[in-house]
């Protein structure tokens, strides 16, 4: 019986890496967003840099989702 262990390991590794990357980026965006809220509430500024950082993070996540959908559709 021939089982493609390498393909299985690759699938596992890629899945793990993508999951960790997406969740890390999303969590950072989330963190930036709540920093901004805190800054606005404390009146220490508008928190614009934090807002931009959050936007970049969420855009990266959206790109990952779009790529995921393209994978489904291309099959």
């Amino acid at each position, binding site marked *: 019986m021939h089982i493609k262990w390498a393909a*299985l390991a690759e*699938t596992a590794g890629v*899945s793990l890496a993508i999951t*960790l990357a997406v*969740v890390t980026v999303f969590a950072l965006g989330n963190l930036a967003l709540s920093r901004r809220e*805190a800054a606005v509430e404390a009146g220490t500024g508008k928190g614009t840099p934090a807002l931009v950082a959050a936007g970049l993070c969420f855009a990266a*996540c959206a790109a990952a989702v779009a790529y995921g959908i393209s994978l489904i559709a291309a099959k």
Partner: protein
Amino acid sequence: MEHITFLVAVVIITALAFDFTNGFHDTANAMATSIATGALKPKVAVAIAAVLNFAGAFLSVKVATTISGGIVNEKAGLQPSIIFAALVGAILWNLLTWLKGLPSSSSHALYGGLIGATVVGAGIGGVNFTTVVSKILIPAVASPIIAGVASWGATKIAYLITGGTPKKSTEKGFRRGQIFSSSLISLAHGTNDAQKTMGIITLTLISAGQLHKGDGPPTWVIVSAGMAIALGTYMGGWRIIRSMGSGLADIRPPQGFASETAAATVILTSSHMGYGLSTTQVCSGGIMGAGLGGPSGKLRWGMVRRMAYTWGLTLPAAAAVSGLAALIADQGDWGVAVVGVALVLGAGSMWLISRRQPVHADNVNDSETVDLPVTGGPTGQTTIAA
């Protein structure tokens, strides 16, 4: 379509019925944690899942040209009676596990049914056991573990990064993220699972001479398969949603987001690599990982054990029921009618039993387990009783 035989008509109806049970059995995969964390209201969640499952059915029909992906030998032409028997076993097993609130794989139920019916109808040589091992059994064991590890790591990271800020504002963000991650799972589910039904109907029509060999599914087949899975999804298998959302672990928004992201990634990566794995097992594995990686690190092991037993039983149980059904259905039209009546009676009685202790949108988050007397369903097994 001048003369669709009795058997072909029965197979098409049964295939759509299976698609329907497939839908409501698997709503939980995408939506259980979103409902549990309050990211989506229960009714809204099942509506989104239904729409996306329907949309998913139109995204691709590539897999719809094969039923089994090489598990059984389709070259000789699958007899409609074998397909019918396979569907009966899969539907009954899906309903029994739904009644017990246990998420089992609809795909495994279908594969098990096909294996059982083929062994009885065409002999043991009709099943490619190498493919069964490499395409079903190994991914079945590996995929929940991979999803679990990914989800565990992602949960740890999510808490590590957002740990220093007030919970209230970050949880809001994770809830929003969950809407997207669970939607992606729904879409992928519609694409994968609706295609299985399309494949069954298409190949049945080909074997009946209504379509030419190699034809893709006609539009009415795509639409009806999409409708059936969407309707089933909208019914919301609330018993299973409860087990997965609150029965395995207490899930907070960061955990829900981590587990859904892990599940979506594993499903997309592996279907891209050609593994036909079970959405159910991947999502359950993700939730388990998120439970262990969360602040309390607790998992309800009793529920984990019950799920694992069910996963192990799905293939052989569906195969046994389908084998029996194939034996009877092979006797001719009256045999098909007997199996059809048995299916309706079995399904009806399980629905009636479920009415004794209904789970619906309003009480889905209330308690953690569904306790029912052992029903001794079609397979008569008691191992998964609470």
